[in-house]
């Protein structure tokens, strides 16, 4: 590939990734500058993406970490272009909106403007990660960007750090999406171990249906579904509404949640090899549609309603993936575009309304069409788009959905109609609840920056309804990547009685019915929500975290009570391990008693003396006696060394023993008699368990010693060479020459330890004063 083409492909990614640091730097310089700089970068990234896509896209594939076959492989294919354009385009509008919204938001909490810098930094990091995620073709690279979005969302949800609810929500979002992300990694590694590559296009050609693919695909799918807030891992999303509204708007339309279906699309060439995986998606999608739709109808808080709506809407996308085929693939891509535009507009509407009126609940709002006509119109267009009314882009999304469902069977078609009707009902409820009816609250003219992004999005929704061509082309290109084959879908208005149109009509009727029969079913729906709150997965999450903490506390207390400061805690397991080692190895004929001759008698006597002196040291009570007894044990040992032909050791042992004894007595002198006496008077009955433990320890020391010494010694040894070489080193005493010459380094180390001990003693006793 030519350098300019490479640059063309990389430019969107580079611009998107540079946006965050640029905005942060600008913000550090002047807090006011963060927003414009960030917005400018978003616009640039959007333009670069559009341009590169228009020029035909392309790929960059270079080695990243060859040892593990990791490649930096990014491509601007149809799927990447779609999500990158959404991330940067919607990002741009949300940032424009934030530039006005955030100062108001910070103003409520008397927070400094500089906190906004952090906001823009994380928003743009989010955007950059999304662009990277869209373009990544290597599964590990994808995982990297995947978690980057999790980090960004974590900080954004916890933007209001003083709010414990926001922190808890951020932690929940991070745990649910971060922990499941590990599954993506595991899936990728399973595929790698089987096929030797992390590259999705290469894997698409290599994979064969089978349990391995099922396992890997399922793991990846779970990660994607958790991110897309699909049942039963959906509960983090409504909680994440603790974030400032622009964050929610972005998170729901073009970033976090979209990332999940993006991943599904990216690995779809692998998934569609397995029927089981597709059926799983089908079930999860249907469940999410139902749960999200029903719960959305019961919510009172604006953002909560929209959150459940998102769960349900992405349920459609997952449902479409599950249906599969040409229609499913293109439909999923198109659905994401349509939903992103509409949902973003609705969130921004909610934010503007709440900012203006101070109310965030439907029950407290109403009649705002008069003071806010422009907002009402734009948001009306968006709601219509969500509800899939004709003349909006939404109409086509449902057309594709119905087409795909029909191809599968009447049951699925019915489910699709039902789901679409639910959507219509809550979209109406949202818009009508705010703008129609009695006016409850005063609202002045909102700032233009809060309205215009909504108008732009609403306009796009309408534009898509009138001129669907560009959106359809983009979706088609993405669909081809997803489907891994050419796909050609022509969404258009057909004024005839084809099944899709009939289904649309049925949807409208059913939706209207739902709207007007609200009093009949609302109690039941609330009941469902209540039960879900009591036994649902969120409850499970809460109680498992709580239980984990409680369990952890309990074992910690147990450890502190029973283990801390107990040296037995290491002697015992060490003994057990050694014992285990000896038990499992054959020991027949390994042990020898050795020979004893008459000349060994002094040696034996010395051994007996050592034994007696040592045993005595365990029985003495007074410290002075203890000093005498243990030093005499040392002296007898020294004598033993002398008998064993080791005069050097004997000499040093005597000297050292003397020194240690002196220091011991000095320490005794430092500690008052009363304190020492208390120790000497401790009742002996406390020691029974200690006797057992030390007997066990001794038994294993015995086994190790005897087992080793019984072995015939090595035939040739270094020692012989050393003896032979000693005259070469101009010496007579071989031990000394070893210490000073052959193994002088050891001696150097030994005296260094001695020097260290001196430093330590002086530090401890004299507070570091050397003199």
């Amino acid at each position, binding site marked *: 590939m030519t350098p300019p083409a490479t640059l063309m492909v990389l430019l969107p990614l580079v611009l998107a990734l540079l946006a965050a640091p640029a905005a942060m730097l600008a913000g550090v310089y002047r807090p006011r500058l963060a927003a414009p700089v960030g917005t400018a970068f978003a616009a640039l990234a959007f333009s670069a993406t559009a341009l590169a896509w228009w020029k035909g896209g392309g790929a960059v594939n270079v080695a990243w970490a060859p040892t593990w076959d990791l490649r930096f492989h990014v491509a601007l294919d149809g799927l990447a272009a779609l999500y990158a354009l959404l991330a940067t385009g919607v990002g741009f509008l949300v940032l424009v909106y934030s530039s006005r919204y955030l100062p108001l938001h910070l103003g409520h909490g008397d927070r400094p403007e500089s906190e906004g810098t952090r906001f823009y930094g994380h928003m743009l990091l989010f955007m950059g990660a999304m662009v990277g995620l869209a373009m990544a073709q290597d599964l590990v690279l994808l995982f990297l960007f995947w978690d980057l979005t999790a980090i960004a969302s974590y900080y954004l949800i916890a933007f209001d750090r003083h709010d414990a609810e926001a922190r808890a929500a951020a932690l929940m979002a991070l745990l649910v999406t971060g922990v499941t992300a590990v599954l993506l990694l595991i899936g990728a590694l399973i595929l790698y171990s089987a096929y030797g590559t992390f590259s999705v296009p290469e894997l698409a050609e290599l994979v064969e249906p089978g349990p391995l693919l099922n396992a890997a695909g399922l793991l990846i799918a779970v990660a994607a579904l958790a991110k897309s807030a699909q049942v039963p891992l959906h509960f983090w999303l409504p909680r994440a509404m603790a974030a400032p509204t622009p964050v929610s708007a972005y998170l729901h339309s073009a970033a976090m949640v979209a990332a999940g279906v993006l991943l599904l699309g990216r690995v779809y060439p692998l998934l569609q090899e397995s029927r089981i995986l597709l059926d799983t998606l089908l079930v999860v999608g249907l469940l999410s549609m139902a749960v999200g739709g029903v719960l959305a109808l019961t919510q009172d808080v604006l953002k909560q309603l929209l959150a459940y709506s998102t769960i349900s809407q992405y349920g459609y996308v997952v449902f479409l993936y599950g249906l599969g085929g040409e229609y499913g693939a293109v439909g999923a891509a198109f659905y994401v575009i349509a939903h992103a535009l509409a949902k973003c507009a609705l969130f921004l509407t909610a934010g503007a309304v709440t900012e203006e009126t101070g109310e965030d609940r439907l029950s407290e709002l109403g009649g705002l069409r008069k003071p806010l006509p422009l907002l009402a119109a734009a948001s009306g267009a968006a709601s219509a788009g969500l509800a899939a009314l004709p003349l909006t882009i939404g109409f086509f999304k449902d057309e594709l959905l119905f087409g795909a469902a029909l191809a599968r069977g009447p049951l699925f078609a019915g489910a699709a109609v039902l789901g679409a009707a639910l959507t219509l009902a809550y979209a109406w409820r949202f818009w009508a609840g705010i703008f129609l009816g009695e006016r409850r609250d005063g609202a002045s003219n909102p700032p233009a920056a809060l309205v215009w992004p909504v108008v732009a999005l609403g306009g796009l929704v309408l534009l898509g309804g009138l001129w669907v061509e560009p959106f359809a082309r983009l979706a088609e290109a993405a669909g081809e990547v997803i489907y891994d084959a050419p796909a050609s879908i022509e969404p258009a208005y057909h004024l005839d009685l084809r099944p899709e149109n009939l289904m649309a009509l049925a949807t409208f009727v059913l939706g209207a019915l739902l709207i007007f029969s609200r009093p009949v079913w609302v109690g039941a729906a609330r009941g469902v929500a209540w039960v879900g709150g009591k036994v649902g997965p969120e409850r499970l999450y809460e109680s498992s975290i709580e239980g984990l903490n409680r369990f952890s506390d309990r074992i910690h207390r147990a450890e502190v009570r029973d283990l801390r400061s107990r040296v037995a805690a290491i002697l015992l397991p060490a003994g057990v391990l050694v014992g285990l080692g000896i038990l499992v190895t054959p020991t027949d004929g390994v042990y020898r008693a050795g020979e004893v001759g008459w000349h060994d008698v002094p040696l034996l006597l010395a051994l007996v003396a050592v034994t007696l002196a040592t045993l005595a040291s365990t029985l003495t009570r007074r410290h*002075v006696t203890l000093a005498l007894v243990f030093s005499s044990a040392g002296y007898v040992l020294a004598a033993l060394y002398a008998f064993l032909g080791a*005069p*050097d050791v*004997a*000499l*040093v042992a005597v*000297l*050292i023993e*003397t*020194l240690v004894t*002196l*220091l011991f007595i*000095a*320490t*005794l*002198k*430092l500690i*008052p*008699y*009363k*304190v020492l006496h208390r120790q000497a008077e401790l009742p002996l009955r406390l020691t029974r368990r200690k006797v057992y433990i030390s007997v066990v320890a001794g038994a294993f020391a015995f086994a190790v010693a005897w087992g080793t010494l019984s072995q015939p010694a090595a035939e040739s040894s270094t020692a012989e060479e050393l003896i032979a*070489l000693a005259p*070469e*080193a*101009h*010496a*007579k*005493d071989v*031990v*000394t*020459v070893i*210490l*000073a*010459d052959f193994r*002088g*380094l050891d*001696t*150097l180390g030994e*005296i*260094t330890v*001695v*020097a260290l*001990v*001196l430093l330590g*003693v*002086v530090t401890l*006793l*004299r507070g570091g004063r*050397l*003199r």
Partner: protein
Amino acid sequence: MSAPINNTTSILTQTVAKLLLLPTFVAAFAILVKGYAQPGDGFSAGVVASLGVLLQYLVLGRREAERLVTVRNAPTIAGAGLLLSLSVAVVPLFLGDPVLTHYPRPGEDVVYLGTLELITPVLFDLGIFFLVFGFAVGAIGAFARTISEQEEYAGPGTEQLEDDT
């Protein structure tokens, strides 16, 4: 423990102790230089020499003992010893030999000064001697000073320090 020892020691023992200091050093020196031929080396020599000094502590008391040059500078002596040994180890590097190469090399002739062999291991041992001597004297000295400071703090005659909890 019994009362401070120096109250009960007689003039005689004090004199003997003072007189013994020199012989212990001589003995230590002998152990040091004969190390290559007989048991003993810098380490034993250092301990022996330090025991001589410790005798001064026991008999004469801390203040008297601390008048000795060697006692006051014990940590410095130890440091110098370590440096000496380390230098013996490192110098060969500058001559292009591996670390800790001793001279004269095997096969080369040794210069004798009387019965003393002039070889670098002796220097190495000398470093060890200083270090060990410094350690023993320094550590005991630190203990001794802490003991007497504690006695001063608690007042004469009282042996027991109240618990400071």
